[in-house]
């Protein structure tokens, strides 16, 4: 399944943005949220980032559980083998249980901290493993 936008490319101030409840296609069992952090991939950017909360429903959205939180940060590009090249697209992801269940949904919250900065976010469901 192709990536789809969950936050348009824009400058975001600190605070929460909701990821609307979205159906998880059957047979797909891993969700990844990709965040473009290029704007904060600079010296001093380590105190800026996004916190992503994902929750899952197995019954069409009546009950929600399996909360998963991933937090991404900016900072001075570096690492083994030398600094990577932009754009800087960080990601978090997790397996979704019960792949044959047609009633699975995911929703979430993206919290910006250390803003404002420009960013965008996309999500993708894939088969797994």
């Amino acid at each position: 399944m192709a990536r789809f936008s969950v936050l348009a490319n824009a400058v975001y101030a600190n605070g929460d943005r909701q990821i609307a409840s979205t159906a998880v296609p059957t047979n797909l069992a891993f969700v990844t949220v990709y965040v473009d952090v290029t704007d904060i991939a600079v010296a001093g950017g380590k105190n800026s980032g996004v916190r992503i909360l994902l929750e899952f429903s197995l019954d069409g959205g009546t009950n929600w559980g399996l909360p998963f939180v991933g937090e991404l940060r900016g900072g001075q590009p570096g690492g083994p083998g030398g600094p990577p090249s932009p754009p800087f697209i960080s990601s978090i992801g997790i397996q979704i249980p019960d792949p044959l269940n047609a009633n699975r949904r995911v929703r979430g919250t993206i919290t910006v901290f250390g803003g404002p900065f420009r960013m965008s976010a996309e999500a993708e469901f894939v088969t797994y493993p």
Partner: protein
Amino acid sequence: MPPAWVQDNTDSLADSDTASTIAVTFGAAVAAGSLIFTWAGWGTGDVTPTCSDSVNGAHTAYGKLWDAVNGQGHCAFYRANTGAGATTVTVSFGVSKQYKRMQIAEYSGVTTSSPQDGNTLRVQSGTTTPSSGNITTTVNGDLVFANIQNIDEGGSGSGTVTAGTGYTEREQRGVWTGSMEDQVQASAGSIDGTWTLDAAKRCICHIMAMKAAPPPPSNEIPPRQALRPRAFAPGLAR
């Protein structure tokens, strides 16, 4: 029996190794009904890794993070209710990858079905006291497992990491690429994975809680029921 550490092991391949997998074998046979934790790190591009072992097949992925700023990734897995036997755990990246690291741990006393009770991970940078962020567990007696991955091996400091208060450190070797720690949380509530480093490094911290196995059926003899007074048959003298 409450959850308990059984054994662990680690592997850190040469940075230049370009294989698409990394594998670690436990030093002793894994017991039936255990839980296996695995985490791995890699560089040179974002992927969605998978994990399996030689006895149980696929493991559940409980979190992946790609830090584009330092060009390294972290992934973690568990397998509950293991079968018994000599066990090699393999993490597959699908394509050639460098900078691969991996650690595994076996625990007893964890429930065998739907064990998860909290899960969070994050990048930390510029601090000697990194932490995973809080989870809030829902039941008493959870196994709380946390791991830290150094994604700044070229940074300053001699490379030591100390487990946080209340945790027992597992499997740190040499110049650290990562470390694991665990504790049994007596009472449900908020808890954080914490560490102390000898120098500030960029790292990825992850914490997850697993529910303890229910206590086994009691062998106690149930208290005897109070004897009912006998009814006297009509016509019989006392």
